[in-house]
């Protein structure tokens, strides 16, 4: 293969984290002078891909080429030498160094080990001037605002003549004013022949700055197209998937007696009061992009977040910020981030399966081994859990089996309400089908289920009613008339951005 001296190629990159596929054979070419907009839902593999590029993660398979030379996996210094840089979500700056030192980090103008402050500040000031920003180079970084700190990181990479520059959700924490300044910098870098990757959850930004748009979903590259030849709804459809596996839609059940009622809920990004009801045997789906507030709703109901408004479970009003009371009232919760919030990865299958039991029992109650094994045994028969032995650490299981444990631990409790946040994230197709049938069966047994998912198909086929959120507001409530297009359009909304995108496109 021959490439331009500054073309970066990711070739056949795959990576698994403890049974979860993060990247599956992804290849991507970054051309000089081009901005690639990289989008995908949480867990689609964007960050992992960029960490492989940056040398922070060693891939299971695959190679990173730069100008025809391989960058060894996990070798950070090779990236520095090759002028490949990433601006991460949390700025990689040192709070107690001066801004000037941060800009020149790793290559200060030292002579025989002595630090030359004057040269350093001059060089840093030149770099700041060249970027067109204003930063106080002599101040300690700690004394800067978050925005300025983040841009210091950008200036640092520009100052070292970076040829490949990745912005990993840099705009997520920037104020509007600084987003504009960042865009000016990106445009200038592009004109300078730098290959840029721009990652953002805000599609209007993606369409504004990108020449090419790449979509990842479940660790696979599903779209790679010039920005001019695509549209927001098309990108969203690729992000959330449309592989209809022939699964038929649930027949809508008549809402039985209301089990979960939420009145005028406000919490975090949910600023506009939200009402919802879930009846016995009903599945209500919440759709929306990342940042729409979909997880916030579940977390507020469960008591993980402060909230205002009322949550009523079977006639009983729940106190805010009180998980124990919620569990006591018969609410179960399956969190989005299974590895960090759902499981104790090093603990045994039994211990994880009985975590809810353990939390609800008195402190000094003896742990019944027999009961623990019974719980796991019933998971094997009822959920098709495949596990070598009950004492093995959960880490050793596949993603699908891990999720069965997180779900299964609630079943022994027979909750009245089950809150599911991305119940099939990062698990294989077979396990997905099993979890779908399980959700159907639970609903049929009279449970009220509130489901958050970023997959359109899942949302459509599992839910009796669908609530689509956008930027903390209800964008649509759909019943049997729901279609993929209707949901995608509601997710994208009619933000001013689409107008801009169409001008650019």
């Amino acid at each position, binding site marked *: 293969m021959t490439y331009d001296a500054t073309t970066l190629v990711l070739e056949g990159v795959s990576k698994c984290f403890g049974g979860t596929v993060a990247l599956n054979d992804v290849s991507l070419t970054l051309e000089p002078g081009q901005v690639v907009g990289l989008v995908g839902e949480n867990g689609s593999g964007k960050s992992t891909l960029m960490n492989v590029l940056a040398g922070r993660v060693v891939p299971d398979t695959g190679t990173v080429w730069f100008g025809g030379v391989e960058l060894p996996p996990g070798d*950070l210094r090779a990236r520095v030498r090759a002028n490949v840089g990433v601006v991460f*979500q949390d700025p990689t700056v*040192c709070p107690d160094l001066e801004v000037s030192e941060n800009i020149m980090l790793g290559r200060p103008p030292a002579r025989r080990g002595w630090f030359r402050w004057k040269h350093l500040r001059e060089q840093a000031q030149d770099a700041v001037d060249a970027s067109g920003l204003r930063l106080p180079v002599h101040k300690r970084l700690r004394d800067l605002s978050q925005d300025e700190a983040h841009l210091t990181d950008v200036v640092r990479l520009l100052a070292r003549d970076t040829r490949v520059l990745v912005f990993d959700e840099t705009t997520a924490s920037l104020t509007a004013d600084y987003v504009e300044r960042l865009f000016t910098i990106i445009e200038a870098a592009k004109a300078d022949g730098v290959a840029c990757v721009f990652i953002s959850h805000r599609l209007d930004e993606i369409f504004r700055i990108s020449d090419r748009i790449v979509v990842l979903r479940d660790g696979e590259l599903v779209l790679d197209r010039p920005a001019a030849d695509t549209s927001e709804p098309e990108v969203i459809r690729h992000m959330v998937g449309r592989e209809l596996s022939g699964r038929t839609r649930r027949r809508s059940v008549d809402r039985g007696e209301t089990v979960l009622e939420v009145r005028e809920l406000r919490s975090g990004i949910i600023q506009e009061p939200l009402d919802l009801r879930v009846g016995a045997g009903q599945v209500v789906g919440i759709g929306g992009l990342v940042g729409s507030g979909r*997880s916030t709703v579940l*977390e507020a109901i469960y008591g993980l977040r402060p909230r205002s408004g009322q949550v009523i479970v079977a006639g009983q009003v729940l106190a805010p910020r009180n998980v124990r009371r919620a569990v006591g009232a018969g609410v179960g919760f399956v969190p989005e981030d299974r590895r960090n919030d759902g499981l104790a990865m090093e603990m045994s299958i039994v211990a994880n399966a009985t975590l809810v039991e353990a939390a609800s029992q008195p402190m000094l109650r003896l742990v019944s081994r027999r009961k623990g094994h019974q719980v796991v045994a019933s998971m094997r028969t009822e959920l098709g859990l495949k596990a070598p032995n009950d004492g093995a650490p959960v880490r050793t299981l596949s993603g699908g089996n891990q999720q069965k444990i997180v779900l299964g631990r609630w079943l022994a409790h027979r909750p009245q309400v089950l809150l599911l946040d991305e119940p099939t994230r990062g698990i294989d197709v077979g396990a997905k089908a099993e979890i779908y049938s399980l959700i159907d069966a639970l609903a049929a047994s009279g449970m009220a289920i509130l489901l958050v998912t970023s997959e359109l198909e899942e949302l459509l086929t599992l839910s009796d009613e669908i609530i689509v959120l956008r930027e903390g507001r209800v964008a649509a409530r759909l019943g049997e008339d729901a279609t993929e297009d209707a949901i995608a359009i509601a997710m994208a909304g009619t933000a001013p951005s689409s107008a801009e995108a169409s001008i650019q496109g």
Partner: protein
Amino acid sequence: MIDSALATEADGLPTRGAVDPGSSPLDRLRDAPPWTGVATVLAVMMVGLALTQPLFLTQVNLTNVARGMAIPLLLAIGATLLLTTGMIDLSIGSMLALCTMVSAGGFHIGLPAPLVVVATVLAGGILGSLNGVLVAKVGLSFFVVTLGTLAVFRSVAQLPTSGLSVPLSNERGFDLIVLLGDGNIGPLSVPVVIAVGSLVLAAVVLRWTNLGRQVYAVGGNENAARLAGMRVDRVRVMVFAVNGLLVGIAAVLFTGRIQAGSPLIGAGIELEVIAAVLLGGTSFLGGQSSLVGTALGVLFIAVLQNGLTMVGVQTLWQGVITGSVLILAVWVDRVRSRGPA
């Protein structure tokens, strides 16, 4: 766990931005130097002692306090450098004892006194580097490594003499060691000059050398330092080595002061030293340090112990006080670095 997951979701959660200066007394306090607290308490304590204890302000007592500070100050400089990179060396007490035994051994085999000094200091550097290599190159936790070498060094120090001290006084050239550890040149106490000189040197290194700036970078954000191409492990080994050299210097002073090599000295001194450093405002979380604060912290503990003795509190109680001060200092650090709620 859930909370940390929430913070990463792009839900527009409030991020910690710039503090509006002078908007509340608490903010102004945060802008003050980190050692403001210990300086204030120290001043109050000294005024109190001066008013109630007639012996406190005498030249003899103050000289004693100053001399007693020299060794803790040397150790505290090393601890400050380590803490700046987010690490602690628990083995310094044992290392100190082992180094005094190296001095004794040096005289025993008839080395000239200047060479004994060099050998002792180098021994400290080597022991410190050993900790550093195990932490930075092998990749073990500093806590585990230095807890382990705490036991190892102490044990090795006791091996040659079955735990007995080696009195030194008549050896040829021992005068030099006594001068370094306990002597005066004109009105100046030599150990105090050495300790203060080391403090100034450390401040220069931290501010004006590449190594010093890398120490702050590694402590402030190891990730950023690594991504910028710094050799983070090398910086860590260097800091451990410098810490060891300082322990070696302290060992020379100690040998001169007690006129012996002793395998038993220095037990628990790491607690006192770390307490002093934290009191001085060096952050437990790394990245931030204050050598001025460290000096004030050491002075605080020295005056506290002096005062407690004068007021008649039994020596046996002093551990209670020092330990409580340590916990208090860490708590204040937590409150301070947490920032506005």
